[in-house]
């Protein structure tokens, strides 16, 4: 955790922003709707003070996190069954792989068709998107190393004890990876659902500001979306490290 602050990296980041500002101000980069960073910062201020940002952010987070939480429950439960019960896996895995090949975004129009322009559309899309990584990671996480199971047999553990003491801890790291991937895709797909379907949240804010020709506010919204993604990812990682310290370390996920 005690990492040195990357001064050089931060300097380059600031320098790049400065260069962007300069190129736009001097009209070397000449696009009609490309704002310099100062205008973007101003746009961010406007969005915050008008309260639009808070409302949109809350809405998007609510939809993305509800979908993700549902997917976590369903994905871990179904993934455990598929990973542990061979016949179920044999008679359904190919169906799942065929379904997974369908590009997720192509489901957004279907969800809009089924659930209309509502927050359900967003939650369903977020759920569907997050389900795949969580489900597949749980399935492969449940494939415990045979030697571990053998030692369980030697110790005469009951089936429940094998599940609780060997299988689940062995799968934890994989499941956490699935949860992280799932969270970022559910956020992205929620944004898509908002752009195409339900007119609310950050996704709609982007489209709205674009149509209102407010590039400063629009770039500010993009910036907020990026930061939100980083914070959510860090939160999941932090929570996982706290909750499953031993399991994560055993799989090399914790480097500190």
């Amino acid at each position: 955790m005690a990492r040195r602050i990357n001064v050089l990296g931060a300097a380059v980041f600031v320098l790049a922003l400065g260069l962007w500002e300069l190129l736009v101000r001097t009209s070397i980069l000449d696009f009609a709707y490309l704002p310099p960073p100062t205008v973007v910062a101003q746009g961010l201020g406007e969005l915050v003070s008008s309260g639009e940002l808070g409302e949109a952010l809350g809405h998007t987070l609510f939809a993305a996190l509800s979908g993700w939480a549902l997917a976590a429950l369903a994905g871990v439960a179904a993934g455990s069954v598929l990973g542990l019960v061979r016949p179920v896996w044999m008679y359904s895995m190919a169906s799942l792989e065929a379904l997974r090949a369908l590009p997720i975004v192509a489901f957004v129009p279907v969800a809009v068709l089924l659930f209309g322009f509502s927050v359900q559309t967003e939650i369903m899309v977020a759920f569907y998107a997050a389900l795949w990584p969580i489900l597949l990671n749980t399935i492969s996480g449940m494939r415990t190393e045979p030697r571990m199971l053998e030692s369980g047999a030697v110790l005469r553990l009951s089936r429940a004890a094998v599940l609780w003491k060997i299988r689940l801890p062995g799968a934890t790291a994989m499941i956490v990876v699935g949860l992280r991937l799932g969270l970022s895709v559910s956020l992205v797909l929620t944004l898509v659902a908002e752009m195409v379907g339900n007119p609310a949240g950050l996704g709609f804010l982007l489209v709205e500001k674009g149509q209102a020709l407010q590039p400063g506010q629009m770039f500010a919204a993009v910036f907020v979306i990026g930061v939100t993604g980083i914070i959510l990812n860090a939160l999941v990682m932090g929570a996982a490290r706290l909750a499953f310290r031993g399991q994560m370390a055993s799989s090399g996920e914790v480097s500190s």
Partner: protein
Amino acid sequence: MKAKKERGGTPIRGLLPLVALLVIWELVGDPASPYFPPPSTWIDGIQPLIDADKLLPAIGQTSLTFVLGLAIATALGAIVGTLVGASRSVDRALSPSLEFLRALPAASLVPVAALVLGYTTQMKLVVVVLPATWPILLTCRTARRTLSPVLLDTPRTLGLSTWHRTTKILTPALTPAVLLGVRVAAPLALIITLLVEIVTRVNGLGAALGAAQAGFLSAQVYGLLTIAGILGFAVNWIVTRAETSVSRRMRGTV
């Protein structure tokens, strides 16, 4: 015996639930249902698009954007990844900026690109290239960083020119990593292509899908979804095949 079974591919009989679901849907489904039209109506649904000669051009535009976008992303990712991975200080200098750009969801770039670049095919391409570059760039950076110094020093001792060092040593050594990145980037690029098309309705399969949804042509939506799925399946299959066969051959020579 059991371990051997696990190593093999997914059993085909696993397709049974999907087939059963489609059959039940077909038998029980109401052809007039606005939400769940049975599979047989899907073909009728896309028939108007075929008659109007719109389906094939749409698939063509989507494929073109996808292939071009992935090709540019591969070149860009491989070159920048190699350069960044070659030097610690460049890596340190650029990684915060790269990390932030990578964290931006591709979806949020679509409206921005549409506003700045307009509703054009170039805009589609830019939006596809950006997110598809990251997996390739990152795997290439790691591979370049962990490259054995001996592999680089030997040709220098032998007095090979920079050009020959690049083509004979660096390229073969990094190709498997680039292909691994492409394998991750390809499905992503297809998704982003469809996404841009759905959101901006410029052209292609995604635009057709968006238009069908807006017109409540549910059978057509499901038909197009199936076509998109077949496209996704084909892309996955080709990329995985290419990656495994090339990296197997590479492992023999390196």
